[in-house]
């Protein structure tokens, strides 16, 4: 697979602006927006200029939101109703690390390093040239295991993996390593998409899925940055007994 193709594969749904409005709501926005705009035009012809204009603007906003799935107001409020749309849950995180893309890549490519900074990962065991076995521990001690394969591997640039077989929590992800401008190191972009199972009681995978959040991954990447830049993980503990 070509590099560009690999990126567009996972990035198909995350163009410049993220989708943050769910399916049903998008359709409602399209219909409602169109109606509002038409009413607005009618009001204008009836010489009610101000209300007419207001309705047209609001109608246009709803149309845009329905068509693109992006809502500026939602973004400002931090609301995202798109999560459970078909295509699983997508988490994107970014961090800049003061090391070269090759250095960051090499640390990540040694998959057995991942549990040193990813809090929910208990172990990653390399089982073949492109295959590995992952074990994660979530809330209340639930564990989920799966096999994964490396789908694309461009040294110093990109890694793409996905779970294989009957994974309880199917997932895929890309890690992109880009040189930051002006000697600022590497811009690391991590995209993880997972497909949560139904929310049945006692389902370990569902519990695990709830524990994977953007904030959690961001903290993981901060630890990665600390390890690569300072050689250790920052702690404010006073003693080992905590």
């Amino acid at each position, binding site marked *: 697979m070509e590099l560009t193709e690999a990126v567009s594969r996972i990035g198909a749904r995350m163009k410049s602006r993220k989708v943050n409005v769910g399916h049903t709501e998008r359709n409602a926005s399209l219909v409602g927006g169109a109606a509002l705009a038409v009413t607005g035009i009618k009001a204008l012809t009836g010489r009610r200029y101000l209300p007419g204009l207001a309705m047209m603007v609001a109608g246009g906003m709803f149309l845009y939101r329905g068509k693109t799935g992006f809502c500026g107001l939602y973004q400002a409020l931090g609301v995202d109703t798109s999560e459970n749309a078909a295509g699983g849950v997508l988490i994107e995180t970014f961090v*800049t690390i*003061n090391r070269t893309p090759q250095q960051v890549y090499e640390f990540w490519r040694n998959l057995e390093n991942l549990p040193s900074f990813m809090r929910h990962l208990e172990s990653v065991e390399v089982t073949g040239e492109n295959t590995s076995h992952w074990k994660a521990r979530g809330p209340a001690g639930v564990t989920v295991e799966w096999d994964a394969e490396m789908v694309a591997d461009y040294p110093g640039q990109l890694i793409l993996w996905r779970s294989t077989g009957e994974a309880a929590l199917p997932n895929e992800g890309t890690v992109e390593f880009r040189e930051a401008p002006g000697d*600022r*190191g590497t811009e690391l972009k991590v995209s993880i998409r997972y497909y949560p199972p139904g929310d049945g009681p006692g389902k370990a995978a569902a519990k695990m899925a709830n524990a994977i959040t953007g*904030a959690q991954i*961001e*903290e993981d990447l*901060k630890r990665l*940055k*600390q390890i690569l*830049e*300072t*050689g*250790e*993980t*920052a*702690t*404010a*503990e*006073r*003693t*080992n*007994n905590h």
Partner: protein
Amino acid sequence: MKAVVWHGKHNVQVDRVPDPQILNPRDAIIRVTLSGICGSDLHLYNGIVPTMKEGDILGHEFMGVVVELGSGVTNLSKGDRVVVPFPISCGDCWYCKQGLWSLCDNSNPNSFLLEKLYGDTGAGIFGYSHLYGGYAGGQAEYVRVPYADVGMHKVPEELSDEQVLFLTDIFPTGYQAAENCSIRDGDTVAVWGCGPVGLLAMKSAQHLGATNVIGIDRFPERLEMAKRHCDAEVINYEEQDVTEALHHMTGGRGPDACIDAVGTEAHGSGMEAAYDMVKQTLRLESDRPIALRQLIRACRKGGTVSIPGVYSGFVDKMPMGSVFAKGLTLRAGQTHVHRYLDPLMKLIVSGAIDTSFIITHRMALEDAPAGYRLFNEKKDGCIKIVLNPRLASGASA
């Protein structure tokens, strides 16, 4: 060990707590020989800074002797006498490499809290709330110092603890505040707040070439110190209108640079001060920017407003129109202490600047609760308290 522990607003106690341990390769443990109570500690004491927890050990101005080193620290030895900058900085991230040590990317394990509040994180700070990492402070017998290879600085033998202690915070803070004023020959620098940082900012401004410095406060003993030690003209804001007095003292131009060495708990007089006091008390406003508003109004056109005083949240009624109309430059932030250690140590060694004059009280570590009370109430001419763990309780001088 014994340590000064925060138990709540206006409640600090000296408690027995477990000794600190080496947790990371670049850690060191020092036995504290002297620590200061900083004006910014009073913001914690008064419950202004959020995320303090009962049991937190206070203190970010301290020095001592190395008693233990992690395997990754090779440039220091046990027995070395060191000063420790108050920001905890890794020395490896882009910010540290740029000399912006207090903006370190890596040292704050609670960076997500600051990111939520401010949009990004700064360095961890010893003993200064969980926003700043939740690190144990140095008003204690022992402290764990992370990134000790860049976070500790050896002290020449001939200098006493009192001569060098203030390199940990207030001397670099006053110096950076003055440096931020881009002082040129003929400049007048006005400093709001004649506490330790304000006094050392005046000294620094003179060292950097200011022709006149003006100190503003309401406590006669502080104004006296500004006159006597910093060769400053002074304004008592309870007796004079500050803006008018500055206008007169500068031929109607206003000071070329103004330094806010007061920060979030400013006092003032009249309706405006009452407004901010009420709002801050009711938590409708997190800071009281009375001094800052005055600085902005008083500063000459094209001048600089330099803010070493601590602000932690939102302020009301900022005269942005004045900032814009007069083309002012605003500079602020925590001090990049590490970058000033060498040059300022040289100034102390050469005798160009002596900072120990600000010490008014020497107390035993165990008497810290009384010290906090005294300092907060500005009683007994208190300007700066230093705590010595080796002094017996009650043996304060």
